[in-house]
């Protein structure tokens, strides 16, 4: 594998648990790999790993991030290649250790080695603001903050934005980590009726650019049931289209943000993909 300077380290983070970090990491990672880029998704949730399960690789984990940090295994021995997308790789978290097993130097070395092998390094952060979360964001060039339109999630996202601006290596060098907001589990009709915070409310409060809006959908649950990212499992579904659009924005395209809907009309079936 040749050295590439374009490698980008992106942390998927939120503060709050259960908002869709792991689902989004898997969906975005698969969509990026589908576009031809070389992608590794790294699970930082040491002790409570789940990215392997969402990607359907749980039966194949041998070594993990902590093994690599401790020199027990070499990085290539720990990377698991996806069976469906050859550009997609997983570096699993350890299930038996705790988050203190992550050392700053160890993580730095692993990230540096990954940079030479991949175009995208997507770090799936654990919930909370402790060691696992701070290690996941430590070497990030960019951050995707996953937020539900709900008060506690927005509050925790604000806290995480503060950490991204102070505790990352880039912040300590006086630079900024690129921050983008991914709103998940969005119900357009609830927002329209004023029952749910609107996109504008959330954007005004957090004041960071919007990467995408993922509508609430049964397709997300179905994808995790079968162990396949939603962008692979049902690429035409509303959440998958929203993730594909988010990936285009992540890669620098400027496209208007829309909330794809699950309309079953023949017109949408034929033209929905283009319109989104």
């Amino acid at each position, binding site marked *: 594998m040749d050295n590439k300077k374009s490698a980008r380290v992106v942390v998927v983070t939120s503060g709050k648990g259960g908002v869709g970090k792991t689902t989004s990491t898997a969906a975005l990672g698969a969509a990026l790999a589908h576009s031809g880029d070389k992608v590794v998704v790294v699970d930082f949730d040491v002790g409570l790993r789940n990215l392997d399960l969402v990607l359907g690789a749980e039966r194949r984990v041998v*070594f993990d991030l902590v093994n690599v940090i401790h020199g*027990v295994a070499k990085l290539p021995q720990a990377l698991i290649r996806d069976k469906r997308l050859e550009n997609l790789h997983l570096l699993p978290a350890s299930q038996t250790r705790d988050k203190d097993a992550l050392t700053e130097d160890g993580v730095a070395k692993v990230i540096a080695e990954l940079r030479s092998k991949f175009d995208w390094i997507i770090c799936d952060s654990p919930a909370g603001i402790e060691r696992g979360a701070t290690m996941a964001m430590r070497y990030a060039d960019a951050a995707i903050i996953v937020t539900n339109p709900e008060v506690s999630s927005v509050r925790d996202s604000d806290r995480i934005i503060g950490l991204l601006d102070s505790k990352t290596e880039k912040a300590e060098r006086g630079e900024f980590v690129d921050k983008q907001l991914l709103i998940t589990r969005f119900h357009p009709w609830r927002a329209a009726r004023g029952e749910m915070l609107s996109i504008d409310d959330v954007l005004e409060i957090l004041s960071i650019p919007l990467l995408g809006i993922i509508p609430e959908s049964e397709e997300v649950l179905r994808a995790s049931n079968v162990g396949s990212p939603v962008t692979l499992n049902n690429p035409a579904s509303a959440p998958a289209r929203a993730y594909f659009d988010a990936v285009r924005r992540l890669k620098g395209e400027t496209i208007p943000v829309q909330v794809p809907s699950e309309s079953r009309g023949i017109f949408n079936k034929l033209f929905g993909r283009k319109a989104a």
Partner: protein
Amino acid sequence: MKLFKLFRRGSAPIARERLQILLAHERNTCKQPDLLDVLREEILALIGRHLSFDPDKVQIKVDRGKSVSTLAVDIEIPNSHGSSGIDSQSGRSAAELLRKDAATAAEQKVA
């Protein structure tokens, strides 16, 4: 009736089966966390006594199944007429290097 059921089957049964297999293995691992470590260490030490190999060129693969799991240890062994490179001593250290927590046991039956 069965066909009807099959037709209507959602993804939940798949989720259920995946979890059952995974958790059976994880619970077993808790009882005997170092079984694979020991196996791996001994296998590589044994091979290291007879053949030279680069510890970086060892790939270990597992596939945890419902009734049977597989453990594959793939060791790249340089041809002896080439430069010999590593002696049996480092073959041993390869085994030591590869010690640590992993998760399954070869051919282990799940109840």
